[in-house]
């Protein structure tokens, strides 16, 4: 994965609470066997009429939000299914960060593994960002991962939390699997001290 650099982008607001991953990418699109091409199906059921024409009132379809890189969602963004297709679809739709007051645990993990930043802000900032995005589609925020800040158009810098390891990996383009592979001696030691609890080969077929 490429290292995440400081970026500036415009926002689009979807101020709906509890946006679940079934809305982000409906299950019928999960029959794919790769990660690509899911962007067009992102929020498909909210975005398109039954005949496939885009709904003009849905923000993601509006020309002024076409290039938004930051999605501002309602509380508890990404709840429901563990499908990593959700961050893949959001990235495919052009997003680099999602801002909410809190995220569902699995979605947050999945997003971090793919370089989509889940940014938690306080309620007042959240409200401010939603209003900003709705009133001025050109309003841009700057996301500085190293400093863990979102810089608002008025210059105010709001800090956001992220665990140190994820931050390190994202800033340096380090992949977490490499780290785990580097621990194979420890894993072997663990296995030597802890006999297998089950053996799936015994119940094969």
């Amino acid at each position: 994965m490429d290292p995440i650099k400081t970026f500036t982008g415009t926002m689009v607001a979807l101020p709906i609470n509890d946006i679940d991953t079934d809305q982000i990418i409906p299950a019928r699109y999960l029959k794919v066997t790769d990660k690509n091409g899911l962007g067009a199906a992102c929020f498909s059921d909210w975005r398109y009429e039954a005949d496939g024409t885009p709904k003009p009132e849905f923000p993601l379809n509006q020309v002024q939000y076409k290039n938004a890189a930051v999605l501002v969602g309602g509380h508890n963004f990404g709840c429901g299914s563990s499908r990593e297709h959700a961050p893949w679809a959001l990235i495919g739709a052009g997003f680099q960060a999602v801002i909410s007051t809190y995220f569902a645990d699995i979605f947050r993990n999945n997003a971090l593994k793919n370089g989509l930043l889940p940014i938690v802000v306080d309620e007042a900032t959240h409200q401010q960002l939603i209003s900003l995005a709705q009133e001025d589609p050109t309003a841009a925020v700057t996301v500085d991962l190293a400093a863990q800040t979102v810089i608002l158009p008025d210059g105010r810098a709001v800090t956001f939390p992220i665990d140190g390891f994820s931050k390190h990996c994202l800033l340096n383009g380090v992949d977490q699997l490499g780290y785990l592979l580097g621990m194979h001696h420890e894993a072997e030691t663990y296995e030597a001290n802890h006999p297998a609890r089950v053996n799936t080969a015994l119940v094969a077929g």
Partner: protein
Amino acid sequence: MSSNGHSRLKTLFEKVWDAHLVRPQTDDLPAVLYIDLHLVHEVTSPQAFTMLRERGLKVRRPDRTLATMDHSTPTIPRGADGIIPVHDQMAAAQLDVMRKNCADFGIPLYDLGTRNQGIVHVIGPEQGLTQPGMTIVCGDSHTSTHGAFGALAFGIGTSEVGHVLATQTLLQNKPKTMAVRIEGQLHAGVTAKDIILAIIAKIGIGGGTGYVFEYMGEAIRGLGMEGRMTICNMSIEGGARAGMIAPDDTTFQYIAGRPAAPQGAAWDAAVAKWRTLPSDEGAAFDSQVTLRADELVPMITYGTNPGMGMSITSRVPDPATLSDASQKLALDKALTYMGLQPNQPLLGKAVDVVFIGSCTNSRIGDLREAARFMKGRKVAEGVRMMVVPGSQQVKAQAEAEGLDMVFREAGAEWREAGCSMCIAMNGDQLQPGQYAVSTSNRNFEGRQGKGGRTFLASPLTAAATAVSGVITDPRTVMSERENA
């Protein structure tokens, strides 16, 4: 052991967590956890295998990995050749990829229609693979189901599926713990499903975010393993990645004699170890919530997430009574999608479909309970009732007991095993605008088919509704029958 030499009081979760640390968590680094069992299905694994291939990696422990097919698999009748036909080309391709991945990497696979195939969270316990004190993961959020056995079991994403395939370990930050106490005893007609729907209605769908639940109390101890699985299954619907229940004699009896269970002296040693797992008396939880089972009645959801639930005898809430603007908006949006009015009762509401199935409620006990209602009764005219067993083994058992005939004679469809209309990616789906009472776990918009509208409820409520054609409190049907 703490630094001063005597052991600290620990919760069930902490005992399992500590026993699986390949490397403990530090200020800078997450813990590395060893994974005892990795379950795999066709939808969330292909990209993980691709990653392994790209890097020339093997699956580290195929003997601790098991794959099944469940999500995109058809549940339609077998052909004359005994094979379940897959007409959807994308699904067929995905199943072929699963076969190839399992063959190439040496992973046991329960292929479509074979005798052990089924929903990933049904087959683990069925085989005796799900045991107390284990760590179990799967690229599926309802992996929480396995916590019913006192295992630490949670859903992971596809990148993490790749991590576990390659290393049998996982990077994790330690979650917090929440004690969920269910005191008192359930009344007749009220089930495990009603308990969990009531918990989620109480804490909200984000209420458990960051936590592992431990369910405890008299009502939990009184449940069999299937009821416990139903409850743990929906932990994720309360935002918790995992839910656990301390193992006891009920747990051990369920596991005993299953194919992957320890035998002989190993069994005795295992049970002795499992008995040390329950939370120590006085162990501290980060948070707690309590519910009284004897105050519960059958539950039903009215909205578009599992937290929007209420007693079946209640009326749909009114957005006008909510003060929080975003909550008001959410309820408005949900009622519009559901085509419901504020203050409307749900009892008596006509439905189009009744779905009995999913990893929440598709085990033999669920089917027995539903069949008890259906026996000698008919599915109401205009209602489609689907009964989808959770696994081929459940299906075979039900057929041996004649339950399939009870359902068929009532006018219900008896299907092959799989996720089916729980996730509606296999062709089993609601039509736009249709109403369903469903025993599954999610009522999100479009979950059971684009435009479909789902009421989540117990198998008892589902069966009672199928017979009358309108949402029905099962307790009224039960008393009618008893009085007849």
